[in-house]
């Protein structure tokens, strides 16, 4: 539904998006994850035909974003990052205006407004001036606007930023619901958010994609399996040799500690049982045995930390 090929975008000499490629299949819910300044908004603005790319190509719903921009714009429902609205208009007036721009005639428009009003819980504020409403309501009006023409593709730029925890939960529930009927791409700088709403992730940092796939695939790929830590009382070399012989071990690191041997094992399998068996067979007492499953959180935190360091001490 969305196909991005070798897309780059420069602002002057700033490279905001650097040769990225990814696809979003019909019916997918994809989270576009990255720290602030990673290039999420820039990519989304290219996909929604707001800005042209410097190079590369992108198609949405089968139409080129540059050559068939009007067609793309009719297929996409877009929630921009800061949810720009006209404060002097009432909610209903605003949705009517947007409905007209979407080419809906009067009965269609009123039906669509009734539908999105219910969907986004706007009943209480439908006749109030937008300028008086809280951030939570503004966000919902933005979503209602994006849903008005029942688009095939929904693109949401940081849909929960600036909301309170209750509103965040509501919005996530709504997005999960919408995912049943639309292809959704949302951006976020928050891993928990993407894990709660999306079936696939695309992680972007400094304009480049660092990883993509389902959360499970990513965990696999990021760590190349899990880590085992064991401490046995036995001769260093013999313990290391014994462990290397176990099935599925890819890397072993040992460290002597006052008669004990501490082993760090990288392996695709869970070897805890085999290590326990080995310890009893060889008569090496065991005082620690645990498995560390790498989390996406760790991976993402590393990326964010690296990005932050770079902004503090820029490369010369």
């Amino acid at each position, binding site marked *: 539904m969305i196909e991005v090929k070798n897309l780059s975008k420069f*602002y002057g000499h700033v490279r905001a998006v650097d040769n990225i490629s990814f696809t979003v299949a019909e019916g997918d819910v994809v989270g576009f994850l990255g720290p602030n300044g990673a290039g999420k908004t820039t990519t989304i*603005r290219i996909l*929604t*035909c*707001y*800005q*042209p790319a410097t190079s590369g190509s992108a198609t949405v719903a089968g139409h080129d974003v540059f050559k068939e921009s*009007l067609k793309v*714009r*009719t297929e*996409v429902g*877009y929630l*921009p990052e*800061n949810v*720009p*609205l*006209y*404060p*002097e*208009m009432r909610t209903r*007036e605003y949705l009517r*205006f*947007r409905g*007209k*721009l*979407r*080419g809906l005639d009067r009965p269609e428009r009123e039906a669509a407004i009734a539908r999105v009003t219910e969907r986004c819980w706007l009943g209480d504020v439908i006749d109030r001036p937008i300028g008086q409403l809280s951030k939570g309501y503004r966000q919902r009006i933005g979503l209602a*606007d994006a849903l008005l023409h029942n688009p095939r593709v929904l693109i949401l730029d940081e849909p929960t930023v600036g909301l309170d925890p209750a509103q965040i939960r509501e919005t996530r529930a709504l997005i999960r619901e919408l995912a049943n009927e639309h292809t959704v791409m949302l951006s976020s700088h928050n891993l928990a958010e993407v894990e709660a709403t999306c079936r696939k992730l695309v992680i972007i940092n400094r304009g480049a994609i660092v990883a993509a796939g389902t959360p499970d695939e990513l965990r696999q790929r990021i760590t190349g399996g899990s880590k085992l830590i064991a401490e046995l009382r036995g001769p260093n070399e013999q313990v290391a040799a014994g462990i290397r012989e176990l099935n599925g071990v890819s890397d072993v690191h040992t460290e002597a500690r006052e008669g004990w041997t501490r082993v760090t094992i990288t392996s695709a399998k869970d070897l805890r049982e085999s290590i326990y068996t080995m310890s009893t067979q060889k008569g090496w007492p065991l005082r620690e045995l645990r498995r560390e499953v790498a989390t996406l959180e760790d991976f993402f935190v590393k990326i964010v930390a690296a990005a932050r360091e770079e902004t503090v001490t820029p490369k010369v």
Partner: protein
Amino acid sequence: MRNTAAIMQRELLSLFCSPVAYIVLMGFLIATGVIAWVTSAFEPGAPATLRTVFTGTMFVLVIFVPAISMRTISEEYRSGTFESLMTAPVSDFQLVLGKYLATMVFYLIMIAGTLVYPIMMMIFGSPSLGVAFSGYLGLIAVGSAFMAVGIFASSLTRNQIVAWILGTIPLVLLVLFGQFFVQFFEGRLRSFFQSLNIVRRFDQFNRGLISSEDVVFFLGVTVLFLFLAVKVVESRRWR
């Protein structure tokens, strides 16, 4: 077409929600009132014509018209609504045209306020209705050209006040060039500036002379600046 109408309607709604609209309306009516009083257009014995009032009004428009148009596109940039507009199926041309039409509707309402003068004249004397009609046509033609310049200025910046200044400066120059500075030039340049003499062209309307050349001139200025505004709006997204 529907998009243009929707944008025009929304713009009018916003215009009438903003205090600037009422300040402009009041200011314009006061200014034309003062002009009518100063030029003694309604003294007993004065000729029953609005010519001096309308000429004065044209100078006032140099300030007031860019004040009507200043927010149109600037405000969309500033508030970010430009993004939601341009990601809906709306063309740059529809946006600019809708803005222009909305401000022209407001402008017509504004100059309708001056209809009291011909009405008073009809009560106290017998003015030529044809000349009054032609004078109003002149006001509309001048207003349209000025408005297009103002919309163009608004497309250049996200700051309304800057848009107002950018709109006023060329209008002041245009009015002054044709009228006063033209004497310092010679040859081709002189005839070029003479053809830009808005004051003279407007005076033709004021005297009841509607020439196609003047109509084409004001229409041409309107089309040119709206076209430039479309190009600027287009280029905004290219950065």
